[in-house]
């Protein structure tokens, strides 16, 4: 077992453990903080995949923006759900069964697929990769349309959020 494999297993274990705590911890604020740890672990996994750009973007977007927004709204709405009441619905065993079923299904499909045990990775030139990624996003032959659609989506989301979250009592 190489060092990289040990690192992967450690990161994956921490990430999964904190993901389980995200969905199971009683205090919603703690769940949000565990979410931060899980997202950080995923950023580390991106680094093991040699996608350093996405590792940094993961920390920047998910931890620096999304997790902080979530924590912020937890703090804003904290007085309603006192941390004493049940956090899960009555039907959580059914949810557990469904999740395990989905996992079993995915695993079944994966085990039948011959590419499952691929170990070798093609060579990669990091600096060159970033340049080509940037060019692919704006080149008309490749992904400029999805890129623009994504930017329109962001603008729409921004305007929508502003309209939704406006205080209705204020003009």
């Amino acid at each position, binding site marked *: 077992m190489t060092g*990289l494999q040990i690192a*992967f297993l450690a990161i*994956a274990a921490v*990430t999964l453990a904190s*993901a389980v705590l*995200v*969905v199971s911890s009683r205090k*919603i604020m703690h*769940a949000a903080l565990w*979410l931060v740890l899980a997202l950080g672990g*995923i950023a580390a*996994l*991106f680094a093991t*995949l040699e*996608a350093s750009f*996405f590792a940094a973007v*993961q920390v920047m*977007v*998910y931890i620096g923006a*999304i997790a902080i*927004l*979530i924590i912020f*709204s*937890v703090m*804003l*709405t904290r007085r*309603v*759900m006192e941390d004493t009441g049940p*956090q*899960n*619905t009555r039907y*959580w065993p059914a*949810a557990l069964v*469904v*999740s*395990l079923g*989905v996992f079993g299904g*995915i695993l079944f499909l*994966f085990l039948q697929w011959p*590419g499952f045990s*691929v*170990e*070798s*990775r*093609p*060579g*990669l030139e990091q600096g060159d*990769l970033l340049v080509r*990624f940037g060019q*692919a996003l704006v080149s008309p032959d490749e*992904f400029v349309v999805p890129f623009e659609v*994504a930017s329109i*989506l*962001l603008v729409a*989301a921004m305007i929508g*959020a*502003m309209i939704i*979250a406006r*205080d*209705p009592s204020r003009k």
Partner: protein
Amino acid sequence: MIPLGWYLIFSALLFCVGLFGVLSRRNAIAILMGVELMLNAVNVNLLAFWRYLWAPKVDGQVFVAIVLVAAAAEVVVGLGLIISAYRRRNTVVADEMDMLKG
């Protein structure tokens, strides 16, 4: 080297944990957190497939970037809705947001 299968199993597990959160939580913000976990699992999967099967090309990375954008937009609108519902109904429990019920 890490086999591709490890990443796939990891992301499948993460996806199912997120799914469990979405299905079982009562707090709307917690449901959103479950959705985040699911989206991240998808991202791990996409990047792993890209790295092992597609690497010198960048197509897989573009997918990941689009997922990131979609996740950001989703969280912004989702939290906006939750805050707005909280203002009107004074609750963030998903079961109690039943104004449309006839």
